[in-house]
């Protein structure tokens, strides 16, 4: 990996698809793009089959624009809607068996640190609420107990969207879904508190209403995982299909939920806090120069 895998061999430029050439010329490889410049550079993720107005797709779009080191990142996903877009990006993607993502990511991260001891390689899991907190619960928890150094992002649409609307541990109490018509009898699982208890060093909860904040959260989660231990982001990413949200109202819904149960929340250990304070101090000095 590294920038070498992106470069077009001399003489082949005119045979490469336009999207690829654009990516090399105008994409974010080897430079730090600002998420607020989206729509003005060639994004890493391409067209994909996620539904119209899907805010999980939006979150993934911002995720790829926010990666601090795309040329040395590996993304892991699994069955569920997210992988439909994750697999369409110019970043290596591994499809873990449903429920296995955090076990695969553990092995991968360890192998990369042995194989490339002098390089930074970021590993990020992005999977649904079903994949991480229901069927993958054991693997997710144990990767945190073992303090594995990678980032886990749960794109929580509060349902099994990809299989037509079964209830998940993250569905809100009382909700009736197409394949769970009796209504959910239990509370939504408190994933953020579980992550803190299980050993994550950086934890955040976010609703996708502010791209700058999403990007900052993703960047922090990835940088903290590089140096200190497991990190976790719980993102609300609505499923307009299963929750029957008119697509024009999807952002309004994200804003509404932010005021209710998805208020932005960020927690980190003292060690991580000091690290970011130091880093941000240095970045400010750079800007002044």
């Amino acid at each position, binding site marked *: 990996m590294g920038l070498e895998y992106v470069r077009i061999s001399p003489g082949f430029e005119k045979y490469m698809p336009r999207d690829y050439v654009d990516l090399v010329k105008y994409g974010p490889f080897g430079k730090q793009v600002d998420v607020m410049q*989206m*729509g*003005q550079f060639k994004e890493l993720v391409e067209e994909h089959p996620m539904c119209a107005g899907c805010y999980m797709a939006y979150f993934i*779009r911002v995720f790829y624009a926010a990666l601090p080191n795309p040329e040395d990142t590996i993304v892991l996903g699994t069955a569920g809607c997210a992988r439909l877009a994750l697999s369409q990006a110019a970043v290596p993607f591994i499809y873990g068996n449903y429920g296995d993502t955090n076990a695969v990511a553990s092995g991968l991260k360890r192998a990369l640190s042995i194989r490339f001891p002098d390089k930074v390689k970021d590993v990020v899991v992005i999977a649904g609420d079903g994949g991480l907190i229901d069927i993958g619960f054991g693997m997710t928890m144990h990767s945190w107990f073992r303090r594995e150094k990678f980032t886990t992002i749960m794109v929580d649409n509060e349902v099994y969207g990809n299989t037509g609307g079964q209830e998940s541990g993250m569905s809100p109490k009382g909700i009736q879904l197409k394949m769970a018509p009796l209504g959910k009898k239990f509370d939504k699982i408190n994933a953020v508190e579980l992550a803190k208890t299980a050993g994550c060093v950086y934890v955040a909860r976010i609703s996708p209403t502010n791209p700058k904040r999403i990007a900052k959260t993703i960047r922090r989660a990835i940088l903290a995982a590089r140096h200190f231990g497991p990190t976790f982001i719980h993102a609300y990413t609505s499923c307009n299909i299963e929750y029957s949200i008119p697509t024009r109202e999807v952002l*309004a819904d994200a804003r509404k939920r932010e005021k209710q149960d998805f208020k932005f929340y960020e927690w980190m250990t003292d060690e991580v806090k000091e690290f970011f304070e130091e880093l941000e101090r240095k970045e400010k000095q750079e800007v002044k120069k």
Partner: protein
Amino acid sequence: MYFVADVKENECAKYNCKQCVLFCPEPNCLNFKSSTNSAWVWYDRCKGCEICVYVCSDLLKRHCIEMVMVTPKATAKS
């Protein structure tokens, strides 16, 4: 025929704004051109969700985006 967003570029250019571009779920679909100071839609990539219309009309009251029906032939030119 399908339903896509279309930016009234002359209207949009009056504002210094990129807000809709930052909230479209699709990558490189709703873009910004600094030479005209305006947003524009790559029709082939648009799924017609109208989130951009919510941003421009409902939130910002600028009304610079309308939804239009296009034929595949018309989109091929973009």
